[in-house]
């Protein structure tokens, strides 16, 4: 078999057993790998409670991983989200996916619950479940260090053990699978860590063709100012977007009350680079190298974290941003949700948080102490408990990232329709609305955006399944990746064939959410965005979004996505896509 290993490990923690399953080639072709394949394997269990022992926790890589395909070092971790109740997944970098493939697996499916805190250690075809009681309460960095020599690591921190709903999983000590609260799923199974290492190779059907296809992608990424340019993410990390978001007046500030941060120029990527002098690093197999880590192994925050721990909280201390990032990673908490929950707390309590308070509150959340107990449930539940649900900037219960939807209407629609809730990465229309790729679109218009969002969702579902980095698609397209997929797997595939797979993956997620009761009422934005302006000056007005125009665009999206009027799937369409009822 080319591309895939053709093996999936099913690990049952209750009785500490495991077995190998051989996936059907048609299933692989229909769902590819990563997010798509994980979605296929979880669908029959998706209506179980997120913490039910039979709820699977899935870690899947794609067919391009462990080959020389560009930017293919990623993987997906999926389960039902403890935070939202919807499909919950995170695409994450590092080298775990690479080692997973080297160990001989396309994915692992973990069910059951260990009777004590445990770790899963995988080396080539051997799987061993270890007692991890001694690691209880230990921070992710400590655990990663203690596991040195055992390969790539996926570790949860004390936050997950303490029940924080937005707990993350930290890969290789630096790369966060942050969104959806998947870290808590690990904890619900009494699983502290997984180590992964292997020595195997992934067979490539046409190595010469792959070399040529790689060159096409390299040429395109080299031509991309956003990726490899003088001010691009290769040089500055994803924080390169910070200045731009402020300049476009769409930087969420003070819990989305404003969209411009006066002090942004002091906390931009240039300032971080100057102060911390980080080195370039990145995911396995990536030439863009957007991850920035200092000599003393401090991770420079990603854009979302930079923005939310500064503008969203009104914080002007650059050191606090780095410290908050470090605490979140060490405790194992999603930085976006953590910062947005603090911003919500700040607004409800009518109290601007000092840098010291930001730090101590994060620790309290991770340890579930004091007000941290309430905040550990995320912004939606915290605000609901305070009867101020209107001040939780969430979609489907997940906190919104650092692009204000009033500054980019495609982003507004994409937030609402995202299958995992408040997420910028499902369709990522910022690519064309702000970054002008593949061409610029009018950011203040819903015109044509419904189908653009649908297409963007399909594209990114494919990227998450191959698994390739979504950033590459600022420059390349599925045209180039279809060639790569063909040369790796030997299955002749065109870009539009991949789009069809993307459509199937997205529809499957819609079906799973519908099975859990999600409807059009969940495809909505907080009322603030329809009533409050964000900025007015300099000839740029960030006005409230016209609710009627938004609803029309959402209805258009349902038509483009072939859903019912209430946003739920249609059985005839599902059948055409080869999806059985759930």
């Amino acid at each position: 078999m080319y591309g895939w290993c053709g093996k999936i490990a099913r690990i049952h923690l209750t009785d500490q057993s495991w077995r190998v399953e051989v996936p059907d080639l048609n299933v692989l072709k229909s769902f590819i790998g990563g997010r798509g394949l994980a979605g296929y394997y979880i669908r029959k269990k998706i209506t179980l409670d997120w913490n039910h022992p039979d709820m699977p926790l899935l870690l899947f890589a794609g067919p391009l991983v462990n080959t020389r395909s560009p930017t293919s070092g990623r993987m997906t971790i999926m389960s039902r989200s403890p935070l939202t109740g919807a499909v919950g997944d995170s695409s994450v970098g590092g080298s775990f996916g690479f080692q997973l493939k080297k160990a001989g697996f396309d994915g692992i499916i973990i069910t059951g619950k260990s009777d004590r805190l445990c770790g899963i250690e995988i080396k080539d075809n051997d799987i061993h479940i270890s007692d991890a009681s001694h690691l209880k309460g230990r921070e992710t960095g400590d655990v990663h260090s203690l596991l040195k020599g055992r390969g790539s690591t996926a570790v949860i921190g004390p936050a997950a053990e303490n029940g924080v709903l937005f707990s993350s999983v930290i890969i290789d000590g630096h790369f966060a699978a942050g969104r959806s609260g998947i870290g808590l799923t690990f904890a619900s199974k009494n699983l502290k860590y997984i180590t992964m290492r292997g020595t195997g190779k992934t067979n490539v059907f046409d190595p010469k063709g792959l070399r040529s296809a790689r060159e096409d992608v390299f040429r395109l990424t080299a031509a991309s100012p956003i990726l490899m340019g003088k001010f691009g993410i290769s040089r500055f990390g994803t924080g390169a977007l910070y200045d731009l978001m402020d300049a476009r007046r769409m930087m969420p500030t003070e819990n989305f009350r404003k969209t411009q941060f006066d002090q942004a120029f002091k906390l931009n990527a240039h300032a971080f680079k100057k102060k911390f002098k980080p080195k370039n690093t990145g995911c396995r197999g990536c030439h863009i190298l957007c991850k920035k880590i200092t000599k003393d192994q401090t991770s420079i925050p990603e854009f979302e974290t930079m923005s939310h721990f500064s503008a969203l909280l009104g914080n002007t201390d650059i050191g606090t941003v780095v410290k908050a990032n470090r605490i979140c990673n060490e405790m194992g908490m999603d930085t976006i949700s953590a910062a947005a929950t603090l911003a919500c707390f700040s607004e409800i309590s009518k109290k601007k948080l000092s840098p010291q308070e930001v730090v101590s509150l994060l620790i309290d959340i991770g340890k579930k102490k004091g007000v941290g107990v309430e905040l550990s449930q995320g912004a939606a539940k915290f605000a609901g408990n305070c009867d101020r649900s209107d001040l939780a900037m969430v979609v489907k219960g997940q906190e919104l990232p650092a692009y204000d939807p009033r500054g980019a209407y495609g982003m507004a629609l994409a937030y609402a329709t995202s299958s995992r809730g408040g997420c910028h990465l499902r369709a990522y229309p910022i690519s064309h609305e702000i970054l002008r790729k593949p061409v610029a679109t009018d950011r203040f218009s819903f015109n044509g955006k419904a189908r653009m969002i649908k297409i963007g969702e399909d594209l990114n579902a494919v990227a998450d399944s191959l698994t390739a980095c979504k950033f590459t698609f600022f420059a390349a397209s599925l045209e180039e990746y279809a060639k790569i997929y063909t040369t790796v797997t030997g299955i002749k595939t065109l870009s539009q064939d991949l789009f069809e797979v993307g459509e199937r993956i997205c529809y499957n997620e819609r079906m799973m959410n519908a099975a859990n009761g999600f409807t059009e009422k969940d495809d909505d934005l907080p009322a603030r965005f329809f009533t409050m302006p964000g900025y007015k000056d300099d000839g740029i007005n960030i006005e409230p979004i016209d609710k009627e125009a938004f609803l029309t665009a959402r209805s258009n999206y349902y038509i483009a996505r072939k859903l019912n009027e209430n946003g739920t799937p249609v059985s005839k369409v599902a059948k055409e896509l080869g999806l059985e009822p759930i």
Partner: protein
Amino acid sequence: MNQIFRTYENKLIKSGLVGPEPPLLGCLDAHLEWNRTDRKRVALEDIFKQLNINALIFSQPAEPYRSIIDYLAETSNGTITPNDCETRTFLHDLPVSFQFSSNSVASILKARKSVIIPGHGIITHGTVGLEQAYVTFSSVCFAGFVKFFCDFLLHAKKGHVDTKRRQVFDQVIRNLDPPVSFNDSLMKGPLNSKKRVCEAIQEAGRLTVEHRLVDSHFGNISFRHGRTLYISQTGSSLDKLKDALDPCPLDGSSCVPITASSELPTHLEIVQHTDNKAILHGHPKFSVILSMDCDIKECMCRRECHLACPHERFVCGIPIVSGEVGSGPHSLCNTVPEATRGNPGVIVYGHGLFTTGKTDFNQPFKNLIQIENNCRTEYFNRIRSLENVESC
């Protein structure tokens, strides 16, 4: 939607890409809409059903593109492979469908951004709107034009111009735009305020498009004012730069210019290491064509001319350098800036022309025209020296 349709109809016609028949434009959001009725819409609607796209352009190109595209398609084996930078980087090749059926066309568009159907026209599509389809349409015409003239010169040198090629050539040159002439003046320097800089950039950009010195509306333009370089954004229309200029601080203290032209590194190198302040970059066709005409017989780097040509080459006294778009190891920012010293312009192999000025855009714009006109004359001189062809 009507307004969008009118915008792209006008752009296609005004840039000389389509006509006399208006193009057929389709956009799909919740429902498919067209700019006009046409019996071919049935087949095109079927294409929309088969592809995950939201915009499509179908049109016969205007002359001389029509004759060129049809000739290249008819004499191809189903794929045209131009060697210009635009094709190499973005299009890869230009596929041909010899029949106008929705299945035949869709099967090609499932893999590529465009398809040429000889005798019928060009179809291009987009996933984020008509702009994308427009850019591809323009690039196909540009790439075809460059390839046709490159091929003709090559065949003329070999003495292998067949009758059909000659007939098409004669017809094509009768339909060429006249050489560009410009006797007016642009805003005069010193451009000593941000307002004046922006106005001057917009004026020069607009004139560059109006005189058809760029492929689609691309190219890029910048001016250094104090410690800031004002530069056109990536993918911006040079004739619509009002809200599409990025300020780039020379000390690198802001990443706002992350959306600046992909040629920003080249512009920065020029303004930081020479006394030039104004930079204009276009894609005039004959400059590009002649940059690819190389007489060096034995060269170890024959297939890498665009990456690293080891020879000093000139056309009409203008240096030709290698280099690729952007910031890669073979970026043209390593070759162009040095070559601008003491020269009125620099041609990048298979790509385009950079011109520079010290105080305003008068010199760069006039040089752009002059160099292109000289290259055009030189092209036909070379042809004439090889065989008797109808003069242009």
